[in-house]
């Protein structure tokens, strides 16, 4: 792959949840080595976009290419090969609760490589050191604090040295100090391991600190993509609402309102 080719290329992606349309013709590109932050209010479709990017949902219409693989057309073998090159850190960590932290981090190595036990142990401990969890490998996920769970999940996400790392809400539910530490960690990872990183967040401070570029999603449409400075300077009203924490005006459609109140149950 040449350096100029995008790592992620999404074209005209539509997504539906039941009859509700979540994404409207989204175009989205991420270049290698970039830290891209996807921002948006709750319900803006950012989680749905993420689920498409990590291959949990196949596109309904439009195309999603990740690391050169078309997710819609890839067979099981291609998807597996793609997944080995992706790392995902979920919002709640999603560590397997019946396994210790060390086993969780070692899981992808155990399943996808033929390394011997010693190598696996050393490699997974190495990654725990990277996320500052050295020595915690024998604890169970339930014994960890919120910030530690996120870091352990990050260690598991990077254990296969992925080219592309996804991070869902790194700072959700964490105190400002721990959240700032995670931001540092993300920057460190990009510089040390040369990963392309996509972070989904609604935390403004954290987004501005780590992002090379920011994509703002609103109601299933991309409002703007650009460097953090240019997005901040944008004169789009919805973006300014998001950046200045202004509540949205509530439109009231009287007919629609009355219809909702009087509609019979199905």
């Amino acid at each position, binding site marked *: 792959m040449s350096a100029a080719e995008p790592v992620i290329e999404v074209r005209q992606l539509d997504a539906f949840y039941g009859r509700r349309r979540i994404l409207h013709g989204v175009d989205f590109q991420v270049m290698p080595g970039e830290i891209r932050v996807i921002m948006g209010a709750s319900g803006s479709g950012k989680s749905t976009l993420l689920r498409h990017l*990590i*291959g*949990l949902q196949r596109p309904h219409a439009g195309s999603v290419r990740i690391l050169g693989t078309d997710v819609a057309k890839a067979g*099981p*073998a291609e*998807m*597996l090969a793609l*997944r*080995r090159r*992706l790392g*995902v850190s*979920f*919002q*709640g960590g*999603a*560590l*397997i*609760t*019946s396994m210790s932290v060390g086993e969780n981090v070692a*899981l*992808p190595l155990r*399943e*996808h490589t033929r390394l011997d036990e010693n190598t696996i142990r050393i490699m997974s401990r190495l990654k725990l050191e990277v996320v500052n969890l050295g020595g915690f490998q024998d604890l169970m996920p339930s014994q960890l604090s919120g910030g530690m769970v996120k870091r352990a999940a990050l260690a*598991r996400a990077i254990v296969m040295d992925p080219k592309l790392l996804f991070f869902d809400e790194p700072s959700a539910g964490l105190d400002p100090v721990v959240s700032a530490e995670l931001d540092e960690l993300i920057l460190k990872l990009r510089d040390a391991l040369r990963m392309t990183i996509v972070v989904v967040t609604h935390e403004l401070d954290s987004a501005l600190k780590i992002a090379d570029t920011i994509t703002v999603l609103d109601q299933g449409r991309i409002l703007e993509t650009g460097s953090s400075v240019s997005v901040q300077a944008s004169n789009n009203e919805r973006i300014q609402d998001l950046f200045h924490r202004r509540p949205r005006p509530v439109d009231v459609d009287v007919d629609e309102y009355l219809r909702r109140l009087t509609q*019979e*149950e*199905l």
Partner: protein
Amino acid sequence: MSLALQLVWRLGKRSVDGVRGLGYAGALLVESLWFSVAGFRSGQTVRFAAVAEQMRQVGVDAVPIVALLSFTVGLMLGIQFVAALGDFGAESQVLMAVAKSVTREFGVLITGILIAGRSGSSFAARIGSMSVSQEVDALGVMGIDPVRYLAAPALLAMLVMLPVLTILANVMAILGAALYCAPVLDISPTVYIVQTLNLLEPGDIWQGLSKSVVFAVLITLVGVSTGFGVSGGAEGVGRATTRAVVYSISAIIVADMIFSFFLNR
């Protein structure tokens, strides 16, 4: 909407949901078996360690309770048959009645119901809580197929352990009956057991064992598919667990009746 229309709507929805559930369970069965046989070719090997761990949880850990309850059921059957057949002066037929009813029906049914309560519910609860906490998604994006990792080991373990537990239940139930009936019949328990062994035909044992294989499939599929279908947080997990137990026990009993009908014609 009128009441009649609502009823029809509900009936239709239930039917569609039912058919969808059946289809999903069928797909799970096929996929699990496929991964077990040919998964290693696509990098989705079903690990022996995972199967062994499931076998311990499903089988070995259930040994005390299966042994105890089937012993008790055997004892109860002995008491009932002695009382009922005694009315006709046919106590000597107790041996035959116990031997056939235990190996054909009660051994496998008791085991099936116990394992549905123990393991069917635990499959649903474990996989359900993993779905809720995104662990199933996490497995997926790590390139570990959730069906291969969670469903296939459970199915293989059940396919091995349910017949084994059924044999244990048969032995314990006949032992229980022997302890009560032998004194009544004026023979020693050893003689009772030897006579039982002489009476039993391989077909009796096979009838129980073939049912146990079907029960294993039913319990696993119901538990695993309700687990994967969980939505709605902790409450959803609780509902799924209850549903898994009720559905799998119902499925077992209906399947048992159908089997008995066709095997004894």
